[in-house]
């Protein structure tokens, strides 16, 4: 029977009530006394030299309080890259400065070169129009091949558009080349992982404020990790002492990666607030979001798979160009490397992997982690080429995968791409997928589609991802400039209710409901008396935020550790109250009792005693009941899954419809199945969106053609089927206290290759030999592929 409280219960979300009644508080909803408004002047050309900027007319406009340009920020720092990548020759990556406002050159359409602060947003908008910027347009660098071969540089000072040329694992290069040269069969595929815009429904927004009497700054901002934003602003950009800056991320309307990073607008509103002595608010409109939010994916890859005569995988070799855009966003160098190359062995016992990634600067918006970040790119390449190999060898795609799966008795398993997988059971996932997706019934459904004149295809995929980002020791070796632990404080108040301060940030994930389930289970108390505090650097100990499916695996583990400390101390207090040794005290259902006696005190009585310490052994126990823990994991967690998709293709129009989508995932232990299922649903929709409809398109001049919802196709309700989601086959993570793995990105990782494999299967019918279509698989592309394959 499903539980109705604690770990494993599908508790409905307490945060829903405020969102359903319109009383959530998102950044743009906040009104600070005497607030002013910032509007940015943004480049309309992709590449240009700033000759001069005349702000005098703008400054004279009604309501205008200040105008800033890049000149005002030459003395301060820049927005840094969080991850140092070394090229194959040992050279460190190229790191051009990313200033608060463009200075000298503009480098992509939307690059901000000035900002107006005014009494009203309309006045600020009008004044931006009056700024006279003399910008000499330069030829734009858009195509990655042109960028690497030409001498037109996005950043003149580095005299190249190549950020790095990375090899993984460099020591395997020769052996991999030889394995491919000598193999019985090699399957090759060239593919594009299409550029996406994350499109959280809440546009980015920030309010800076400053208190002259104390020198304190406050930034309200749409962030997935307020502490990292504070750290970057303090240590790298503005130099505000960390203890003088509070960053608050209130309710945040989705992130999907795009709100991990620090952006220049945040620094601008803080600097402007100090200058004016009044709060300064900026809210992006959707066009600005398209132009300036960090985009995702944008890889061009050639992958080769070498196999022996029996279908055993011998080696994977990939050659990838990864677009990083005009500037390095905070994690943009980690995404195509350590979040991608290290997963290139997939779920398989392949002995050799070699990955080469060249990161390329272009005159486009910065590209960084988007839901899955590197792992969708790895999975897509692997799972597409495996399907193609199966077809070339005349093998069943499920059987070929099973043949090469790591088996349950092989853990811990050292993958050929350098990770140590701790637990999994890929055959069990595949078995379950075959059952849930009713693979046996496919043929009958195919015939039914055919009778309607439609082509039906079946696609499958197996994935593994590295989540719970991440062990600081490991990422330190890999080039990370930050630690990736997390922290939590459990505060038991005198009256017995609890505040749990967490470093993770909830922007849709339901932490306010799920974290209390964990604490309540451990203490045996009602979750309703436990509140989660998140998103405010002045209230929580520290944190590295929410991304990489890390909240529960890393921050949840910190919550467990802090709660364990609470239990230990509470047992001491109970022992004192009951005149027994703390070692003889057992906590069960919220009651501390002395083993073998009927003496007991409740959790609430212990809490009260901690704060009213009359007759209290002060030499042994401090008053109060509050504990903090920092948790740094020993390894990544490794969620995995088996997905299936059935599509119907209309041969007359090329239109693809997803009819059935099945996701069977191993997330380890599941705290709230309802929330986990919802996370998978959202990921599936983003993955199906990538596969079928979403695309970010720049023209050869670097103009973004898809800068609105009229041009960038978002998946809508009528593009989606009902999903079948299962997480019954969990194997426990072996190294964190809850045995959890993380579920936020899985759907977006597993679904794109599944959908495209299904489309190709459909297009194989009727004697056509379509072997490849790039995403998004639009009707036009399907039509072309069918005509070319005739």
């Amino acid at each position, binding site marked *: 029977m499903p539980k109705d409280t604690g770990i494993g219960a599908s508790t*409905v*979300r307490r*945060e*829903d*009530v405020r*969102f*359903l*009644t*319109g*009383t*959530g*508080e*998102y950044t*743009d*909803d906040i*009104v600070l006394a005497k607030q002013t408004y910032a509007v940015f002047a943004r480049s309309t050309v992709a590449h240009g030299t700033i000759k001069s900027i005349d702000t005098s007319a703008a400054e004279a406009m009604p309501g205008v309080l200040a105008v800033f340009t890049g000149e005002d920020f030459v003395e301060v720092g820049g927005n840094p890259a969080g991850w140092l990548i070394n090229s194959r020759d040992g050279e460190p990556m190229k790191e051009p400065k990313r200033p608060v406002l463009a200075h000298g050159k503009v480098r992509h359409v939307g690059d901000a070169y000035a900002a107006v602060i005014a009494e009203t947003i*309309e006045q600020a908008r009008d004044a931006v129009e009056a700024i006279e910027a003399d910008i000499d347009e330069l030829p734009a660098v858009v195509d990655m091949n042109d960028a690497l071969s030409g001498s037109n540089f996005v950043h003149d000072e580095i005299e190249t558009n190549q950020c790095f040329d990375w090899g993984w694992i460099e020591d395997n290069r020769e052996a991999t080349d030889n394995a491919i040269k000598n193999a019985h069969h090699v399957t090759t595929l060239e593919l594009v992982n299409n550029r996406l815009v994350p*499109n*959280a*429904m*809440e*546009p980015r927004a920030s309010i800076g404020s400053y208190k002259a009497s104390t020198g304190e700054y406050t930034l309200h901002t749409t962030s997935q990790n307020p502490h990292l934003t504070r750290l970057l602003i303090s240590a790298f950009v503005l130099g505000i002492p960390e203890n003088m800056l509070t960053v608050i991320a209130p*309710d*945040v*309307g*989705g992130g*999907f990666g795009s709100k991990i990073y620090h952006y220049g607008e945040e620094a601008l509103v803080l600097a402007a607030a100090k200058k004016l002595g009044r709060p300064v608010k900026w809210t992006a409109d*959707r066009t600005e979001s398209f132009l300036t939010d960090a985009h995702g994916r944008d890889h061009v890859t050639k992958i080769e798979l070498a196999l022996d005569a029996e279908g055993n995988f011998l080696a994977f070799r990939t050659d990838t160009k990864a677009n990083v855009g005009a500037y390095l966003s905070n994690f943009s160098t980690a995404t195509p490397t350590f979040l991608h190359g290290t997963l290139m062995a997939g779920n398989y016992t392949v002995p050799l992997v070699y990955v080469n990634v060249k990161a390329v600067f272009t005159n486009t918006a910065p590209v960084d982690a988007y839901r899955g970040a590197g792992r969708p790119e790895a999975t897509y390449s692997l799972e597409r080429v495996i399907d193609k190999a199966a077809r070339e060898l005349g093998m069943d795609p499920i059987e070929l995968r099973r043949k090469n799966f790591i088996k349950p008795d092989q853990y811990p398993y050292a993958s050929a791409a350098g990770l140590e997988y701790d637990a999994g059971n890929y055959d069990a996932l595949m078995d379950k997928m075959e059952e*849930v*997706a009713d693979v046996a019934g496919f043929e009958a459904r195919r015939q039914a589609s055919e009778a309607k004149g439609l082509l039906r295809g079946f696609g499958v995929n197996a994935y593994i991802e590295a989540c719970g980002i991440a062990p600081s020791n490991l990422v330190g070796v890999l080039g990370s400039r930050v630690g990736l632990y997390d922290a939590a404080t459990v505060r038991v108040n005198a009256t017995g209710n609890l505040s749990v301060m967490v470093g993770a940030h909830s*922007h*849709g994930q*339901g932490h306010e409901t799920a974290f209390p389930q964990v604490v309540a289970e451990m203490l045996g108390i009602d979750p309703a008396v436990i509140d989660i505090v998140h998103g405010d650097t002045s209230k929580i100990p520290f944190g590295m935020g929410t991304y990489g499916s890390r909240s529960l695996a890393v921050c949840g583990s910190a919550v467990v550790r802090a709660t364990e400390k609470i239990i230990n101390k509470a047992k001491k207090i109970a022992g004192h109250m009951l005149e027994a040794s703390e070692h003889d005290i057992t906590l069960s259902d919220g009651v501390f009792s002395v083993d073998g006696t009927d003496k007991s005190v409740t959790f609430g009585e212990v809490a009260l005693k901690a704060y009213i310490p009359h007759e209290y052994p002060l030499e042994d126990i401090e008053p109060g009941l509050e504990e903090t823990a920092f948790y740094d994991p020993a390894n990544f967690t490794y969620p995995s899954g088996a997905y299936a998709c059935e599509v119907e293709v209309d041969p007359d129009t090329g239109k693809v419809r997803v009819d*059935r*989508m099945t996701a069977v995932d191993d997330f380890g232990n599941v705290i709230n199945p*309802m*929330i986990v*299922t*919802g*996370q998978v*649903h*959202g*990921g*599936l*929709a*983003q993955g199906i969106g990538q596969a079928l409809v979403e695309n970010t398109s720049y023209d050869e001049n670097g103009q973004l053609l898809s800068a*609105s*919802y*009229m041009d960038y196709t*978002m998946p*809508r*309700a*009528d593009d*989606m*089927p*009902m*999903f*079948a*989601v299962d997480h019954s086959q969990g194997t426990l993570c072996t190294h964190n206290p809850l045995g959890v793995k993380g579920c936020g990105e899985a*759907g977006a990782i597993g679904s794109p290759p599944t959908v495209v494999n299904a489309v190709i299967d459909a297009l194989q019918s009727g004697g056509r030999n379509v072997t490849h279509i790039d995403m998004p698989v639009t009707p036009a592309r399907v039509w072309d592929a069918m005509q070319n394959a005739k």
Partner: protein
Amino acid sequence: MTKVTMTVNGKAVSGDVEGRTLLSSFLREDQGLTGTHVGCDTSQCGACVVHVDGAAVKACTMLAAEADGAEVNTIEGQANADGSLNVIQQAFQDHHGLQCGFCTPGMVMSAAALLKDNPKPSEQEVRDYLEGNICRCTGYHNIVKAIMAASGQDVPAMAAE
């Protein structure tokens, strides 16, 4: 500046607006009703849906001056008189029809308009009706389920969950 007067969630309100002031801005900034969200600038996302004289309207596509004299209802006025969630809101909570909550006010207002016209929609009718509401979080599955449940219907999943 022109003076506009309207009824918002049953209360008479008035304010001075510029000709260009959108109904969404009037509600959010003048009235402090920030439950109506703005997610785009091309009338595509539906985060701003409110009811004007009983019909679902994207508040970002209507001028405040055009709503002069109208009866406007927003997400803030949807709960039952005792403050409890109404049937649609409750169905969204019960079926996890929201994650970040940003699209949610528009979804709830659209769902209410749909069910008023079509009390027992099919799954396909629900999906078609939501064409103007974008959600990036839920994949729509649980939104569709919630709206079906609010209409007293179950929606068969593709397979057991």
